[in-house]
C-alpha cells in the first residue's frame, strides 16, 4: 500500500487558502517543536502552553501572508514564537514579579501531565545559565539539542550561514564554560 506523503508545499497552499484541515496538519507537525522551544525559553509549562497556543493562533491569522522564499515554514513559526517569547520576557521584566534567574525550572501547575519532568540541581543550574545567554544563543542550543538539528538546518531557521552557526555555537560553549567557572558550578555532580 503506498504511503501518504506529507507534501508541505501543497499543505501550505491549502492552509493559506483557508483550509482548516490543512492547517491542522501543520499544527500536528509542528506543535511539539514549538512547545519545546517556548518551554525552554520561558522555563515553565503553563506559560509555554499559553504562548504555544498564541503562536499557532497568530500563524493561522497570518498564514495567507506567508510566502515561500526558500526559507522553511518552521523558520516562520519559530520567528513568531521568538517574538512572542521576547514580548513575554519584556512584560515580565516590566512587572518585575520574579527575577529572571528565579524563573522556576520545574512546572508549577499540578494538573500538567509533563510535571514529571525532573531536573537535577546541576541541570537546573545549567538551565539558568542558558537562560541568561542572549536569545540568539539560546535558540541555537534549543535547536541543536532539543530538535537535534544540524548546523545547516539551524542556519536556515536563524538566517545565518552554516559556518556562522558553527562559530556562534563555539562561542556559546566558551561563554558557558566561563560562566560555569565564575559561578563554581560543578557539572560532575561531586
Amino acid at each position: 500500500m503506498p504511503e501518504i506523503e506529507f507534501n508541505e508545499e501543497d499543505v501550505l497552499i491549502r492552509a493559506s487558502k483557508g483550509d482548516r484541515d490543512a492547517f491542522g496538519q501543520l499544527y500536528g507537525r509542528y506543535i511539539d517543536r514549538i512547545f519545546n522551544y517556548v518551554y525552554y525559553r520561558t522555563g515553565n509549562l503553563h506559560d509555554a502552553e499559553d504562548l504555544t497556543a498564541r503562536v499557532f493562533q497568530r500563524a493561522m491569522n497570518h498564514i495567507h501572508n506567508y510566502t515561500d522564499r526558500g526559507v522553511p515554514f518552521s523558520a516562520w513559526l519559530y520567528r513568531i514564537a521568538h517574538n512572542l517569547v521576547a514580548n513575554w520576557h519584556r512584560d515580565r521584566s516590566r512587572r518585575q514579579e520574579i527575577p529572571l534567574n528565579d524563573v522556576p525550572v520545574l512546572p508549577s501547575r499540578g494538573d500538567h501531565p509533563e510535571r514529571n519532568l525532573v531536573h537535577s540541581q546541576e541541570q537546573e543550574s545549567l538551565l539558568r545559565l542558558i537562560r541568561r545567554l542572549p536569545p540568539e544563543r539560546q535558540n541555537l542550543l534549543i535547536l541543536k539539542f532539543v530538535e537535534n538539528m544540524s548546523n545547516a538546518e539551524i542556519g536556515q531557521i536563524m538566517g545565518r550561514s552554516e559556518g556562522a552557526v558553527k562559530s556562534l555555537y563555539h562561542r556559546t560553549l566558551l561563554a558557558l564554560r566561563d560562566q560555569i567557572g565564575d559561578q563554581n558550578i560543578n557539572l560532575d555532580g561531586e
Partner: protein
Amino acid sequence: MTKRRNKVFEDQLDVIEAHLAGTLKRVPLSNDVIQRLHERIHFPYREEIASRLRDWNRMFLVFGGVMSVLLLVITIARALFHLVGRRQLG
C-alpha cells in the same frame, strides 16, 4: 605544552556538550495537551465568512439595525442640543 592545554580545553567543551545534551531534552506532549491547545485556536472557515456575506436577509437586518441605531443616536443628540441650546439662549 600547548597540545596539552588544547586537549584540556577540548575536554572541557566536550563535558559541557554532554551536559547540554542531558539537560536540553525534548519534553513529550501528551494528547490531552495537544487537544487542549487545538481547542484554544479558533479557525473560522473562509467559506463560513463568505456565506455570511452572501446571506442577504442577514445582511439586510445588520445594515438596517446599524442605520436605526445611528438615526436614534443622531435624534437624541439633536434633541439634547435643541433643549440645552434653547435654555442657554433664554
